């Protein structure tokens, strides 16, 4: 499972470069997220824009990641594709997690207007 991180305005942005978080990958997702989130104390923004499918095991893994963090530490989600958004909405997890409409720009400011 490929997961990498960037930083932007004092947030750790975690990019899931996988199309699925499902029963076949939920455990690995939890494990990788644990080691990634333990490496800093920054607020976390989980970039799900590559994830086109999540099932209840994947959802449970995201919940587990949230519960493993310090309660005061921010965990936001961004980039929900339609099928992922649907699963969060139907299980009301969209009211539990702060969900951003899209990723904040990760371009340097001076390039942001050039493109």
């Amino acid at each position, binding site marked *: 499972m490929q997961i990498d991180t960037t930083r932007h305005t004092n947030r750790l942005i975690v990019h899931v470069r996988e199309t*699925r978080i*499902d*029963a*076949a*990958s939920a455990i690995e997702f939890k494990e990788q997220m644990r080691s990634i989130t333990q490496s800093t104390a920054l607020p976390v923004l989980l970039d799900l824009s590559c994830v086109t*499918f999540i*099932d*209840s*095991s994947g*959802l*449970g*893994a995201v*919940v*587990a990641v*949230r*519960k493993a963090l310090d*309660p005061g530490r921010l965990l936001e989600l961004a980039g929900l594709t*339609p*099928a992922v958004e*649907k*699963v969060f909405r*139907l*299980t*009301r997890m969209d*009211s*539990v997690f702060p969900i951003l409409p899209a990723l904040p720009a990760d371009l340097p400011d001076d390039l942001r207007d050039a493109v």
Partner: protein
Amino acid sequence: MPSEPQDKTTRLTIPSDAHQVRLALCTLFDALATGPLPPDTRDTAQIVLAEALNNIVEHAYGTERGEIEVTLHTSATGLHCQIADFGRPMPGGILPEGRLSLPHLMADLPEGGFGWHLIRSLSQDLRYRYEGGCNRLEFRIESQQSAL
């Protein structure tokens, strides 16, 4: 009346294993991507099928080996799904209620138990029976751009 031109039946046997379920879903939904179902219906169908299949792997077969038979039929009224397995029957012989309970405290959030809620929310004509050692689950995914 002859069947609609888009009527199509697909049959698939899947070993009881999470990776095999993933592979089967990818194969099925890649093929469906060029089929007659609108994107929203396809997403819905994949969610419901995934939950039903993963439950069989986890609960009906558990650590036992086994096979799951899936029959999909696309028609004008949607995607008709039949799933058969030879694992343990449902507890009490009936489908779980799938009621959602949201606690107030983050620490009490459940990490599972969403499966049947999703299946019930997203499917029509849901039926289950256990006969001759075989679990049979049937449902339909309505083909329409719903607001769900």
